[in-house]
């Protein structure tokens, strides 16, 4: 499991625009670099990020090799109702890591 930092308000007013910030530890190896022996280091990046809010997709991003290691993604959404936000990162190996955070909407 990669280390993840997620920052979002735990409480929000209904209809309020909330900012969500995510940071995940990942080398984001481009596939263009040569290793010490001159052999290409195989590409290994997170290529997809999805955020769902109570099951509904609210944000999605495709990532490419030019994105630096430990990708930081910040976005906003509207607080509609209490529930959970799920964050999923998928890498080149097809592995998906999902983190869930709760939000209370008043």
């Amino acid at each position, binding site marked *: 499991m990669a*280390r993840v*930092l*997620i*920052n979002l308000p735990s409480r929000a007013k209904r209809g309020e625009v909330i900012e969500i*910030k995510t*940071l995940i*530890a990942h*080398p*984001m190896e481009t596939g263009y670099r040569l290793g010490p022996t001159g052999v290409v280091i195989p590409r290994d990046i997170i290529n997809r990020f999805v955020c769902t809010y109570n099951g509904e997709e609210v944000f999605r991003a495709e990532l490419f090799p030019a994105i*630096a*290691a*430990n990708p*930081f993604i*910040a976005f906003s959404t509207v607080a509609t109702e209490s529930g959970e936000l799920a964050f999923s990162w998928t890498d080149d190996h097809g592995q998906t890591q999902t983190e869930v955070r709760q939000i209370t909407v008043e």
Partner: protein
Amino acid sequence: MRVLVLAVVTATVVAAAAAEITPGDRRSGYDFSGPETRAMQDDDTANPGMLGVLQGETLWARKAGAADRSCADCHGDPRTSMKGVAARYPAFDPALARPLDLEERINRCRSEHQGAEPLAWESEDLLALTAFIAHQSRGLPITVQTDAELRPFFDLGGELFHRRQGQLNLSCSQCHDDNWGKRLAGAVIPQGHPTGYPVYRLEWQSLGSLQRRLRNCMIGVRAEPYEYGAPEAVALELYLMERTHGMPIETPAVRP
């Protein structure tokens, strides 16, 4: 003739003394960074160095070695036991009769008290533990000691700082004392105050130690870099920390 020599010597001494940065003029590398880099450091959820701190927290509680003990088993709550520790390193080790930097101290602790293998220099785990420990001192002033026992090591560090070396024949002080604030190609020359190590360097895309940074600079002037843990490297660290005396720890800092 003798008068002339004396005059030249005096002029050199005056020039050297004037080159030292006065306390009021000292500025952290943070002040030379761009607004985006500063914003990244200021926000703990955007600072990628915090991923290392997070990992260090896990390692702090993990049992290791023949003694099957974790850092926490001896040192307890790091928020109290490790507060201010990083601000005092490199510190003198009586058993080895030489200064140890924080990374070496962690590894000594591992081999002596945990019965564990020392962590490799610049390994993710060592950087993470160091960052976690140094993070406990964030905001505290650097108060490294350079008294009796450490004086020869401090003097060696100072000598190395002012010694010209490499194919470019440059000393550390020629850039960082005499020409800070000016540009070296596209980059601003900082004053070289190690306030935020281990630092997350955007160029490295990872955390790195002060020794790695020193090696970078030495490669830059085309000198042969000191090995990790070399006495010269630790002496230079000690000199730099004393030169930074009183400035607050920023770990994990973000630098371009």
